[in-house]
């Protein structure tokens, strides 16, 4: 990709960010909240995509990092009277450490074994949050001091989304990103071409753990109450995966498009069909995997609308 195209994409991101920054003043609480959720899912899908799309290690447990960030914020704000913003950094730091400790053994597993191990790890974090009463207040959950937080958290989520997009874009269009792709395509060949696969996979995993943790912290400060089932909610992981798959995993624009489309669709349907939308979700997974395995972006590439590959 040429420098001109990078500049154009940067300009596009800046314009979108400015529009989103000006919006909340004139919006009702409902729409502000809708936009904030959408931005959060963009962050989550893009993060999941770094390890699962770029690197090919499909994670079914990424909600663990979201939950860790949520608990870091809740505990520090409610029990230790911290200001909420620095708790986001703490959550990100803990998620990174857990990412290294968990990733080192688990990233030796491949394909379905990795996916299942991550599912188990996420369950593990949920159980820990439930039984570690002294720290997390267990199943009672944690209530934060009530306040009107919807505007500040909106801006925090906006900043997080812009940073996440910028990082995902930089990774996707670098030789680092291409090496992650190489690991996805053929790990043995990648190693034979000098790629230290352990280090690269771990870097991708940690990178994909940080942003969901920050998102979890921001979301916690918005809703002001969390308990284990609400933040270690398996459907959040499924949403990350499905949004990336629908848009086109392994690309930068794919997870963004997927998050916009799917979250909007979900919001439109659940009001009228509170349970049916979950069935539709399941059906959707099957249809996307069967007929559009490379997502909307893959479709656009096959049609010749978008060039193949990330480096040109």
């Amino acid at each position, binding site marked *: 990709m040429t420098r001109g195209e990078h500049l154009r994409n940067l300009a596009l991101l800046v314009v979108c960010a400015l529009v989103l920054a000006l919006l909340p003043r004139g919006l009702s609480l409902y729409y502000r909240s809708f936009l904030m959720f959408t931005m959060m899912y963009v962050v989550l899908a893009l993060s999941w995509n770094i390890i699962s799309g770029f690197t090919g290690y499909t994670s079914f447990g990424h909600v663990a990092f979201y939950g860790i960030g949520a608990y870091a914020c809740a505990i520090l704000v409610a029990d230790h009277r911290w200001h909420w913003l620095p708790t986001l950094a703490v959550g990100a730091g803990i998620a990174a450490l857990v990412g290294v400790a968990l990733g080192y053994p688990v990233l030796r597993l491949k394909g379905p074994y990795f996916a299942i191990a991550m599912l188990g790890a996420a369950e593990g974090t949920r159980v820990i949050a439930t039984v570690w009463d002294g720290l997390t207040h267990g199943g009672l959950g944690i209530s934060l001091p009530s306040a009107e937080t919807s505007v500040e958290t909106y801006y925090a989520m906006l900043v997080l989304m812009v940073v996440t997009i910028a990082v995902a874009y930089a990774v996707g269009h670098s030789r680092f990103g*291409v090496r992650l*792709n190489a690991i996805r395509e053929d790990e*043995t060949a990648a190693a*034979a*071409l*000098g*790629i230290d696969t352990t280090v690269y996979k771990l870097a991708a995993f940690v990178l994909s753990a940080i942003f969901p943790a920050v998102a979890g912290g921001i979301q916690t400060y918005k809703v002001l109450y969390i308990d284990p089932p609400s933040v270690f909610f398996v459907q959040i992981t499924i949403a990350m995966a499905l949004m990336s798959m629908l848009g086109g995993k*392994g690309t930068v624009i794919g997870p963004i498009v997927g998050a916009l489309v799917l979250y909007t669709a979900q919001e439109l349907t659940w009001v009228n069909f509170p349970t049916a939308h979950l069935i539709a979700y399941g059906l959707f997974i099957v249809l996307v995997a069967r007929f559009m395995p490379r997502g909307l972006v893959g479709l656009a590439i096959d049609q010749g609308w978008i060039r*193949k590959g990330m*480096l040109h």
Partner: protein
Amino acid sequence: MRDLRKTFGGVRAVDGCSFSVPAGKISGLIGPNGSGKTTTFDLLTGLTRPDGGRVLYRGNDLAGLKPHQIFRKGITRTFQITRIFREMTVLENMLSVTGLGVPDHVARERAHELIAFVNLTHLRAEYGGRLSYGQQKLLEFARALMTDPDLILLDEPAAGVNRTLLQHLLAQIHRLQESGKTVLIVEHDMNVIMNHCERIFVLDYGVKIAEGPPAEIRHDERVLDAYFGRRRR
């Protein structure tokens, strides 16, 4: 390599094998199917760990090192069945190689040169998986040259490549040798081996049974026995 050994289950795939690849020359490694040629390559490049023995390269023992560490010592390889990255473009395949220690634009320049070197320029934005098998072999060959390695191991470069492409590939291999590189080729195509290698090593059941220039190997009794079975005298 000295006294190299590798056992899979009860099968002694490489069984106390020793030979020295002459620097700056093209050598061949031959033997019947299952004689341990590819396993030898895997041992040399760290894809499998040897059970015993040493791999000496410029005075260092490489046995037990990880693949990426061996690669950074200047040894690259291609695979018997190509292992190009299928859902990455030709250019991306080239740029995935590490250890260049050069800025982005230099790496790109080198990638474009090598893509041209194997006549794939018109396909540089195409997915690796969309290339013909012969073109994939060429891509893999070019990719192995990204870091300007000193020792190049080629596992059946001729298999599945048409005659015209093969002549081109062989010419490139000779150009590498002329620029001071060492090449070791595993190949079943005897024309390639006999006409292009200066020294040949013959394996059978994981043991080296002969070594020498093509003219000698051609008439070596043990080699003929290994390939055609014991003849009646």
